[in-house]
């Protein structure tokens, strides 16, 4: 085996080894990145839920008078942005309450769900 061939072989071996190493590293980091991304998404949802809850408390629970249509629109948009069917369904139950007692039950259920979402 000539000198050049030997050097070439060693270089190729080293390059293959480093390729394997970096490929492994890449996949590990990608996995880690996906996990972080999932956490970030969860946090984002959490923030949306928190914002909706704040809006709900400030504009509905602490309302001095009838809630105006602009606020209602904001609430409706905010609740749908959560992309949570359970919360949306509970929100609709609350909105459609026919009696004071029903409203009291539904508001508690809604708050409970929101708190769970924020946790």
């Amino acid at each position, binding site marked *: 085996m000539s000198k050049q061939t030997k050097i070439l072989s060693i270089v190729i071996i080293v390059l293959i080894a480093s390729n394997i190493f970096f490929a492994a590293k890449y996949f590990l980091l990608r996995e880690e990145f996906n996990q972080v991304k999932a956490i970030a998404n969860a946090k984002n949802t959490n923030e949306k839920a928190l914002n909706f809850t704040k809006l709900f408390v400030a504009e*509905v629970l602490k309302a*001095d008078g*009838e809630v105006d249509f602009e606020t209602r629109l904001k609430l409706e948009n905010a609740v749908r942005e959560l992309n949570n069917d359970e919360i949306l369904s509970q929100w609709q139950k609350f909105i459609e309450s026919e009696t004071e007692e029903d409203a*009291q039950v539904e508001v508690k259920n809604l708050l409970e769900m929101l708190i769970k979402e924020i946790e």
Partner: protein
Amino acid sequence: MTVMIIVAIPVFASSTSGIIDNNHKYAWSENVGWINFKTDNGNISITDSELSGYAWSSGYGWINLSPPTSGVNNDGSGNLSGYAWGENVGWIDFSGVAINSDGYFSGYANSVIAGQISFNCSNTDSCANSDFKLRTDWRPREERPICNNATDDDNDGLTDYPADPGCSSLDDEDETDPGSGLPPSAYNSPLSPPPSSNNPGGVFSVVINNNDEYTNNKTVLLKLTAGENTARMAISNSIKFVNASQIPFQENMEWEINNSGIVYARFYTKYGYKSQTVSDSIILDNIAPKIKITGIKDYYDSAEDVILIAKTEANAEVVLYWDEKYGLAYADGQGELIMNLGKMPAGDYRLELFSIDLAGNKGDVLFANLIIKKVKKTKEISENQENKPIEQVQQKFYEPIISPKNKFSEELIEKISKFFEPVFPKFPKSKPKKPKEIITIPKKTPLVMRNQWNLFPQEQINEFVLAPLPKGLKRLAKKFPKLQETFDKVGIDKITDLKKLRNSELSLPGLSKYSLFSKKELALLKNIPLSKLPSEIKNKIPSEMIFARIGDEKSIDFDIKLNISDQGKIQQRINAISGQKLILTVRPERKAKSVYGYLAFTERKNQKFSFQNEIPKNKFCNLFNSIIFAKPVFAENYANEVEEEFISQKFSYADKDNDGLWIAEIVAPIVEGEYEVITLIEYEDPDLGTRMIRLTTIVDPEGYVYEMIKDQELRIRNATVSIYQLNSESDEYELWQADNYRQKNPQTTDATGRYSFLVPEGTYYLAVEAADYSFYQSEPFTIQEGFGIHQNIKLKSKNAWLKIIDWKVIAILLLFVLVVWNFWRDKKRSFHNS
């Protein structure tokens, strides 16, 4: 009181800057005659550094005291130098002239043409014949009051009144504070505010409208943050603080902004030292946004989505109203928006829409008519191609619904086009997707939002808010007067007040520190077993409460840590070490027939085995308490509530000497977890019946000694764990005398590596020795009575460095050696060949 913040240095015509006296205004020259230094237009001025203005000679004209290339200088002490210039007299040298402490000029100025100019008749002792003098109200620095001498006499970096806070007036003779002087801190700039969640950097700040980006109102709310020694502040819309005044510091204030929307603030100490200038800005926009529909069909089919395009202000909200419902849409960064109103039944509709910009300005309402026709046959639709607006809208927004199969290719095209976009901006892109249907709400306000109902049941809230403290807690406070005092001081008399105790840990005294006992009695409690105490002391021991000790009746006495929940439930963290013997004592209220108990498992504790490199001071776990009473004062009537399946131990209390104290010995369970000690007192009096006392106990595992091998813990056998106590008299550490407490010191670990100590209050350190491992010694730590030491201790192998060599390192080294060997061989061969 308001004070001007932008203060110009005042001109005081008598000291620092002077003029010529009307009665003494002439100098004399043999060649040119009288020279008048106080003419109507001469404006001669004398300062600490120079003379300026013009003198007048009737024969030779004006003499400029500050000509462009020279000028008459003053050294501040009244010694003049430099040259004045006259068109007809040439240069006049003032280096021989001085101003004395009374403001009189003396000496001569010299000029080739004018010759000697005398400023005072006393120069030639000729005042008797011709009384002329030149005088000013300027005074040399040395002759002026300390607070007006243009000198920083107290070296505080500040000069004279009003800059130096030590000066009360220009006549003040002391720049330092009269009397004892100002504290050194008086010369400090305002302190920065401490870091907080809103201000993590801990910097001076002014925040407009809670950091809103826009406002449509010139009146804004400022939030100001400054350090504790800030007394005043100045706010301005100008960076130069024009017309600004110092006002007392306040954290919030209303302010009128100008069109720039920038607000500047400075903060001052009470001594007048100022901070750097800080600012905040907000965009003032009070122009209502306009909206224009740019895409609408002449009519829509009832089977299709009604889509419109509009243009308004960037990022504005657009509120729509049609068919008894409201909808909301958002414009993009260019102000464009596409509104999908969804499918609508055939008919004529009137659409109203208006936009609200980011500053909250509402635009005028725009009206549009929508015509919805019934679905026509496909043929009819294809014939109706001349309806251009329809075409435009359809082409732009009516792409066919993407099937799942096509979805991947669509995404791929989008990714590729995005990748090539910087290089080929016109790279084909996928079609824009159909806009989402607008979320709508009915015009009629739902009942729940009409503010007619209480959304929370008022009665229940009132009951909760005004409910008194739980009975058990009241009884606990009654038995521990100090606890009652705490409740009184903190203002706890309703159940809702309990939130004040959230996150706080109450400490109740151990039996030997109980305040109802006298000092003598407490000494007895410490030294004599409970059973041998005099009857009068025994009778003072609180009834229906459990006292527990480790080892024997004379063992260590511990304080109790309690947390009280919002519901008034007492939560105790009573930690015992598995396998530890403990003695429980209870004094029934009246004569009891029998007292017995159960040890019931409630839940397994999720013990996280973690190691702390350093043992933190005062952070040792609570090992056990001498008085433990999770709910002892809540002794309740027993109604066969004990669930047999969870009972791990049954035990009996005994009152061998009939002294009213019932004592039981139990062993803490080996398995760590949460347990409940249930004590039942069966009274002779049938009215009292059987009373139950519950007690929650957390059983901790013992500490252990281990070594980390590849992220796994390996317990170390035969490690010698010793604890050393600081002898306060000799100030030296000594091996702790564990025999007095029925314990061993040092302890030798078994295969589990476990050890534990229960020590009285004092300062200690731990030492661990094991063959083939480095010696371990903890930092000294101080602990209170009743704390157990059971930390997990990590030892390092003496040959730890060898463990970093694994197969990867060996492979790399081998590869390296092979490469070097190969080069060496080649070199050797080429050497031989040559």
